[in-house]
């Protein structure tokens, strides 16, 4: 979520430390930061709010509250502090929830006589900083409140609604609604709609309808501040391929209490920007959210964290986070703020303590005595001894893809849609691997390519682990892998490679050179000097003595990292190599 630094500052008496310092504070105590962007005079942080904090932190207020706790700077203006009073009540607008469980609360606020126009500069700047386009003062006000406290809102043109009898009901299968994006959506009965006199005017929690859109001619407006079921909104948004800032907030589940705060803030701001007179509110809230409590003991905190924190340390963390608590003989009872739906069990509170105190304050401790012997995994023991056995015989281990062109089991939704089956055999993969490696035999300095794989296949309705081998002489074959009966794994070697070295993706050229050595001169050194950097491998592959003379045969592999070499240039190099060897007294054969 995009978070504006200048926006955050408004929650405090004095400007906060710079954006980099805020990013650091959030990274180590709350959320990862995906980047900081400069937008005009503002700095915008891209905060990766975790799914457990979507309830309260998809808002500037939520992030400000976190910073207040981390940096120990009290919030000067908390929009969630004073409980909203939704008065007066109006009977001009009515709301019927039709007993749906998918809407916990629906508040309609009715304002008459607004003057729709452009937003003031400060509001445009705030919204543009977080990537929003300014539309008009009324719509911008509802968006501002959403990004400010996290409650999605919607404004209808009351004159265009046709009826002020609002309802929330399941859509009819095939019911069509044109949304604010001017696209028409065909709805299903699993989706929830907002209705005016039973005509759909909005897709609940996702998007408002075009017919009641606010424009310059709008006089009277109805503001919606509601609470819709997370799963329902998520499924609707997915099915319609219409994810909005509202739907992302509802699908994380937000408190129905927040709707009251959202409504009051929106009405205040709209009246400030667009005038109008508040006719009143209609609040359908059949089952108010009960108070929430969570408990934890000092002992449990220290048991889980491995720390020696005191009651005072824990109390300090709770105070900084604005979590009211009662403490009695080591037991903390936290009265959970309505928006913190993530705080339920003791471990949730322990996490709050840990991250506010800082994970760097938690020591590293060795594991206690186990008092048991670990078991030997007989599948793994068998795989390990099989690996050793095959490696000794010259086989190298490969790991090929489990995805194949054919098989018994098919993947439904593969992103790249190539090889959509799960392999039923290791054989095709090994045969392909052999073919791929054969041309590189000289480069690899191998007499024969030999490969093995221990891998999973799906065949005969089962998932089975197989061992497969292939060589240039023997076709690829596989057998079911059998567990061992070992007393231990043995001391097996691990790779001693230091660093991976890049290899060229261009073809190589091989040249052999044989000679009679009459003198005691290092032929390889001469070859290396003369053949230059394009010779990637020089090896003595044959040597014999006859009649007091020594025959030497070298294989030289030429390859470039940036191009395909030509026969001509390699022949030229070989010419130089021959001449140099001759000059040193070798007789080229």
């Amino acid at each position, binding site marked *: 979520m995009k978070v504006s630094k200048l926006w955050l500052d408004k929650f405090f008496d004095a400007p906060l430390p710079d954006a980099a310092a805020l990013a650091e504070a959030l990274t180590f105590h709350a959320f990862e930061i995906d980047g900081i962007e400069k937008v005009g005079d503002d700095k915008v942080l891209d905060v990766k709010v975790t799914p457990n904090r979507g309830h309260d932190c998809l808002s500037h207020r939520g992030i400000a509250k976190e910073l207040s706790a981390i940096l120990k700077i009290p919030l000067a203006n908390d929009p969630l502090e004073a409980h909203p009073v939704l008065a007066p009540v109006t009977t001009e607008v009515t709301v019927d929830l039709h007993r749906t469980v998918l809407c916990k609360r629906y508040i309609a606020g009715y304002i008459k006589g607004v003057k729709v126009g452009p937003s003031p500069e400060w509001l445009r700047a705030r919204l543009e900083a977080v990537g929003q386009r300014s539309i008009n003062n009324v719509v911008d006000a509802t968006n501002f409140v959403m990004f400010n406290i996290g409650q999605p809102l919607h404004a209808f043109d009351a004159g265009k609604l046709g009826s002020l009898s609002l309802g929330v009901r399941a859509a009819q299968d095939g019911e069509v609604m044109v949304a604010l994006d001017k696209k028409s959506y065909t709805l299903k009965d699993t989706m929830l709609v907002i209705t005016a006199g039973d005509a759909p005017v909005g897709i609940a929690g996702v998007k408002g309808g075009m017919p009641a859109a606010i424009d310059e001619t709008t006089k009277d407006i109805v503001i919606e501040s509601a609470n819709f079921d997370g799963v329902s909104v998520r499924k609707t948004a997915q099915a319609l391929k219409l994810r909005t800032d509202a739907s992302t907030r509802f699908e994380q589940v937000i408190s129905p209490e927040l709707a009251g705060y959202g409504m009051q803030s929106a009405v205040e701001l709209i009246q400030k920007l667009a005038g109008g007179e508040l006719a009143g509110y209609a609040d359908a809230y059949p089952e108010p959210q009960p108070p929430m409590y969570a408990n934890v003991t000092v002992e449990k905190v220290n048991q889980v964290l491995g720390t020696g924190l005191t009651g005072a340390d824990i109390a300090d963390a709770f105070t900084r986070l604005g979590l009211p608590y009662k403490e009695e003989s080591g037991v903390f009872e936290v009265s959970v703020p309505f928006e913190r739906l993530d705080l339920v069990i003791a471990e949730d509170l322990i996490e709050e303590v840990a991250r506010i105190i800082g994970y760097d304050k938690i020591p590293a401790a060795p594991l206690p005595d186990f008092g048991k012997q670990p078991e030997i995994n007989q599948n793994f023991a068998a795989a390990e001894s099989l690996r050793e056995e095959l490696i000794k015989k010259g086989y190298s281990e490969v790991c090929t893809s489990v995805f194949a062109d054919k098989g018994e089991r098919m993947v439904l*939704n593969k992103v790249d849609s190539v090889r959509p089956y799960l392999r039923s055999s290791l054989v095709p993969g090994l045969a392909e691997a052999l073919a791929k490696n054969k041309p590189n035999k000289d480069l690899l300095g191998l007499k024969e390519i030999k490969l093995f794989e221990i891998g999973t296949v799906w065949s005969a309705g089962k998932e089975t682990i197989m061992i497969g081998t292939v060589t240039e002489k023997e076709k690829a074959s596989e057998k079911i892998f059998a567990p061992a009966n070992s007393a231990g794994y043995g001391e097996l070697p691990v790779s001693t490679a230091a660093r991976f070295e890049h290899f060229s993706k261009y073809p190589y050229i091989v040249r052999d050179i044989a000679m009679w050595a009459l003198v005691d001169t290092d032929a390889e050194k001469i070859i290396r000097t003369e053949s230059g950097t394009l010779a990637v491998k020089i090896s003595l592959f044959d040597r014999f003595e006859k009649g007091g003379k020594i025959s030497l045969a070298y294989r030289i592999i030429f390859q470039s990292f940036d191009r395909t070499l030509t026969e001509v240039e390699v022949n030229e190099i070989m010419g130089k190599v021959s001449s140099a060897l001759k000059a040193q007294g070798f007789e080229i054969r």
Partner: protein
Amino acid sequence: MDMTPDAQLGHLHPISSLIREANQIFFRMGFTLAEGPLLESEWYNFDALNVPKDHPSRDMQDTFFIKDMHGHVLRTHTSPVQVRYMESQIKKGAEPPYRVIVPGKVFRNEATDMTHEAEFTQIEGLVVGENISIANLKGTLELFLKNMFTGAQVEIRFRPSFFPFVEPGVEVDMRLVGDAVPEKLKDKWIEMMGAGMVHPSVLKNAGVDPKKYQGFAFGVGLDRLAMLKWGIDDVRYMHSADLRFVNQF
């Protein structure tokens, strides 16, 4: 005379080498190696791990679903084996303490590039007992990474994070310090893995009493570990079956 040695040795795949090395390190600390199926039920892959249906946290992992096998996925992590292992122990009448590592293949439905693969390898760790803490998690990971990156001073740090199957949840960063460390890695904090204290619901789902026992879990990407350890710049080499790659290890 033929100069090519008759007894040319083959090579171990670098991921197998890492699993072998990790198993040696953890075996000394009392960990048993456990396994589980790659084609996993949604119950073990998600529900038992406290990832509810239709919840945004399921979006955190792009999942492969299987045709005509409703309720099954290619496992997105090695964590389902946490529940499978604990369940099997309880069934045998073996109460905690438990110490397990689970190396194995996992799958994410995403386009592949130099740093992303649809199939890769993870190693999961699980420790459950009466007094297992975040401090023990720190100590265990320090010891593991020190053994994996011998010759360097290894520092680790935790940052708050969220995975539905742990609470508290952390992200673990590592920094290598010392003259032997390659320039590219030296003194830089690198994200290594997700970890945390096993969520009480996960223990409960596996039949372990969360009032009596607690524990930690972690999951490391071995492909990423291999890339860091050996300076490999393209994850796709792992499944390339190219001996120009494998035979370097």
